[in-house]
Structures are given as C-alpha cells and as structure tokens.
C-alpha cells in the first residue's frame, strides 16, 4: 500500500505510462525527485491532479488534452519526471530504445493515433467539468 502522496502519484503515473506496476526503484526515485525539486501547483493544477489520481482511468484523456493545449501544467510536469525516471531504468529500456518494426506496424500506429485523438477530445470535455 502506498505510504505517501508521492508514492501514490508514482504508482498511478507508472501504471499509466507502462501499463504495468512500476518497479520499486522508479517509485523511490520519483519520491526523491519530488522532494528535491517540487513542482509548483496552482489551485487549478491541484484540482486536476487530485481528480486524475482518484480517477486514474481518465489520466490518458486528461494528459492528452493538456499536451494538446500546450499550457503549462503541473500534472504534465510531474509525469515528465516519472517518464524520465522510467526511461533510465534498465527494465524499461526497450520501451524507449528504437526497435525494428514490421511494415504492418504503421497501421497499428494509425489506430493508436486515432485512439489518441479520441482521448484528447474526451479529455478536453473532462477538463471543463474539473
């Protein structure tokens, strides 16, 4: 069970980014990062982060909408930290290092982009209500 708010954040962000439980070192590094270089949050940021943590199934939508809007966002800043930490874990190296893909992978990418567009639109609507 998560023992600190940062651990909970790390677990939620890690699950979202990896579709799997993040390893203990990633969680520990995220907690250290948040203690060493805290992310400044406005009240709006805090509301969004609280909602995203309580409804982690919506995280992909909110993340997509915030990324598209290009406005500064504490949630995205925190997720950038988690992404950087995951990228420097040997266990996840293959998720970030380029891999040889079959020609059909482009079609899969197309579907994924359609999904991303859908999530973005849904996230935009969600943000109106948060």
């Amino acid at each position, binding site marked *: 069970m998560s023992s600190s708010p940062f651990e909970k954040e790390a677990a939620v962000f890690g699950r979202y980014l990896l*579709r799997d439980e993040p390893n203990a070192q990633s969680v520990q590094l995220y907690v250290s990062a948040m203690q060493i270089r805290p992310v400044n949050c406005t009240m709006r940021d805090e509301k969004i982060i609280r909602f995203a943590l309580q409804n982690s199934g919506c995280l992909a939508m909110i993340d997509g909408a915030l990324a598209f809007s290009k406005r500064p966002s504490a949630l995205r800043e925190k997720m950038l*930290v988690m992404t950087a930490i995951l990228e420097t874990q040997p266990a996840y190296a293959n998720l970030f290092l380029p891999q040889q893909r079959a020609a059909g*992978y482009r079609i899969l990418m197309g579907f994924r982009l359609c999904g991303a567009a859908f999530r973005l639109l849904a996230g935009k609507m969600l943000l109106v209500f948060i």
Partner: protein
Amino acid sequence: MELHDFIVVGSGCTGAMAAQTLVESGARVLMLDGGKRGGVYQSITPSKNFPAIRREEQDQHRYLLGDKFESIPAGKVSTGEQLTPARRFMIEAADHFLRHRSDTFFPMESLGYGGLGAGWGLGCCVFSENELKKAGLPVAEMQSAYQLVSDRIGISGSSDDAQAFTFAHLEGIQPAPRLHPTAEKIYSRYAAKKTALKKNGFHLGRPALALLTQEKDHRKPLDYRDMEFYDDKGLSAWRAWITVDELQKKNNFMYRGSTLVTAFHEENGSVRVESLNLDTQEKETFHCRKLVLSPGVLSTARIVLRSMDENNHRLPLLCNPYNYTPCLVLSETGKSLPDALTGMAQLSLFHDADGTQTDVAMASLYNYRSLLMFRLLKEVPLGFRDARMLMNYLLPGIVIMGIHHPESAGGEKFLHLEADSSSPTGDLLRTVYKLNETESAKITAREKLYAKAMRKLGAWALKRVSPGHGSSIHYAGTLPFDDNGKPFSIHPSGRLNGTENVFIADGSGFRFLPAKGLTLSLMANAHLVAEKLLKK
C-alpha cells in the same frame, strides 16, 4: 607585489589558445579563471556504449538525469536546458556571479574550467574572405592562424560540397566519423539532387569537427559509444581544458581558479587586476605587464565597463539568431539503430544565396538518441503514453536541424551595466535584444527555404522551435574593431583602445557574426592577439 608578465583571463577556447601561444614562446603566464569543475558524473559513467548502459546499468539515472534530477527540464524551453548532468558544471554559479537581466535575451555564460568550450558542439568552420573582411579580421593572418589552431586541436572532416564552408584549404584533416543511417540516407539523396539544390544556394556535406578519428598525441580516436554529451573518455573531442591541463605541466604557466576578474586599472606601465574570490567572496588584486581578456564577450563587457567607470554606456551586441526544427525521414522510421554511433553533428547544410560566401546560413543536422526520448516527448501534442509509442517508432527517422543565421549590427541590440546591491559584484548586465522587422522576415523566409530543401532530401520539417534570443551561445561585437582609437573599441592588434596594456582575445571585436560555427575563428584570433602581443 608580484608582477606577472602576462595575465590571461578565462580558460575557455580563446583563453587556452592565447595562453598556449604565450607559454610556447617562453613567456611567464598566469591564468585567472572561475575554475568550476565537474568530474563526479564523468567518473561514474561506465565505458560501455549508450545502448548497453541503458539495458544494463542500474544507476544510469545518476549520470543521465543527475543526482538532483537537474537534467529534467522544468517549465519553458530555455538556454542550457539541453546540458547533461556532466556538463552542467559549466553554468554552475554563473547566475549568481555573472548577474544578467533581460526580457528578451537569455545567454549562457560559464565560470567552468574550460569555459563554454566544455560543452562546445565541436564544429570548426573557416570564415570566407568576405566574412573575415566584414568581421574586421585580417584575411592573410587568419588563414595561417586557422592552420595552426587546426594542427593543435585536430580536426576531422570530408572533401565534399561543404568543404568550402568548413575546413576549406586546411591541411592535415582526419577522415570524418561514420554516419548515422538516417544521415547516410540524406547524404546519398543529396548526391542525386545536388544540381537543383546548389542552384538554390544549398550545399550539403560532412561538418568539420574537433573530433579525432585517428590517434593524436595522447588522445584516442572516436570510439562511437554515443556518450559524447556525458563524458570525455579517450579525449577524442577537443576541449579547452585539455590544453589548459597540458599548459599546467609547464614551469612558465600558473593557473588560479575560483577567481572572478572584475576590473583592471593601468598604472605606471603595468596593469592592476581586481578580482573576487568565488569561495571566500573576498577581493584580491594581481599585477601584470600585459592583460589578456578572454572570459567571453559578455564578461569582457562587464570588466571593461566597470574599469572605464562607464556603467551606463551602451555597448552593441551581436548574437546569431538560432532556431531548430525536428525533421522526419519516413523511410527510416520503425528501424533499430546500430549500437555504434556518435551524437555529434552528422551533416551541415549551408545556404549561400548569392554564391559569394558573404551571407551564409548554416544548419547542423543531428540524429537523436543519447539525449533521451523524454525531452522530445514533452514537445509532442499527445499524452505521454501515446507520445512514447509514437516516438519510439519515429525516432530512428528523426533528424534535428539547428539553423544559425548570420548577424550584422542593427536593430535594437545593446547591453549596459546597472547597479545591483544584491549582486556580489554590485552590478548586473542588462541586455536589450530585438530583431527589426527586416531581420525577422529574412530569417523566416530563409527557414522556409531550409524546410523546402529538406523536403527535397526526403526529410519533413515537423515543428519550428525557437529557444529564444541568446540560445545560439554565439556572442560578439560589443567592442567593435576600430583603428582610429575610438573609445569602447578594439584596435586591430587586439589592444583595447584607450589602454596601453590591455588586450582582448575573444569575439568582442567582431563587427559581423557569420552563421558558421565561430569557435575556430575565435581561437585563431586569440592566437593572433597573443602573437602580436609577443612581437610588441
């Protein structure tokens, strides 16, 4: 009171070159320098290549991100954001001791051992005759100085369409490093389309780099570990500190770090140099017969303005406008990359509109891997998970095109000192930098031409990123060359007009700033200043 023959201020590329020339002539030289050092991260970085580190090393986050996660950017794109933990010592304490304010200009300055040269991109370009004349540099003397500097540092390059813009007629050039597969694709496509591209003023080729591909003295050839941004193992990349390290083995050279030179005063045929000890913040004084200033253009401006007691005097400023554009070569996406690569510039694309080498823009093309993907992900307008999957697929085909534009005096670009009681030096440098409409329009038009040229080469420009004025880290022109003795200018000999024994060996005198990497020219000029000083 000890009277030194020469004091050289700064250990960057220009300070190192000027000091080497003086020391090799037998003169006694004291170098005063900020002297901040890295070392911790370099010492813990394994000798493996980048993919092996990524797959095997549990502690890689320490040297890839930093123990304080200092390499993870926060907020907007800013100058210095791209520095890896091992290179961040270059800018350590600079904010505190080299106080600077501006709404429009965000420079990078260094108090590091080896100065900004510790993170230099290694590009070596010889200025053309026209560029030298516009900059106010002596053509014939610079040609021989280029060769001397090239022999000292070691340059690799290739005899191709870029040669006229890079190493030109220099001799002893080592072969260029192996190409990244995507760069190879662009290079071969250029061979097929070069007639049309050259007609439009574009010339593509391998850059000349201060990067060895063959052994030289005690330095090893490039090992293709793709770790150039993280360590200097083997010393294949020339860094200014390598030269300063060598000079410290000589009896007629003394190095003193933790010293910020703040001002000078001429008295009785010698120079009194005032400084601040960076550790104790106490004032210290040194004396010399000749002073050579090479702490970087902005620091030189501070020192000169304080010494002339003219804080409010406005000095002009030149800085190459710089933007970068990620480009995509679709045919290279979805491929794995070879383990053995180099992260340094792969290709250079020059735009010489009228074919006279007077007004040349330069784009450097980099592949992207060792700077980690997360930096790119934050720029993608998708959620991190979707962006990660997309970029993992696209990354082998991504080429970052960084475009430098030439800069002439004009527009509203100047700097001056202001009092600041909270600053350790009691002042700050304020810079105003605005391009006028003509300049901005020219840059935009030129970048459109670049995008079009890249399309012809099979690379699609994705997004133009403007990291802000000052991000080119090429600064010059604050004390333009003048042989009439005008105040706040430099005599062609390198002497600061209005002084007898103060010489300036950095780019402060350049009246024009070509877009080509200027470091080789800075070093050649620094050598010439030292050489002329010896003849005096």
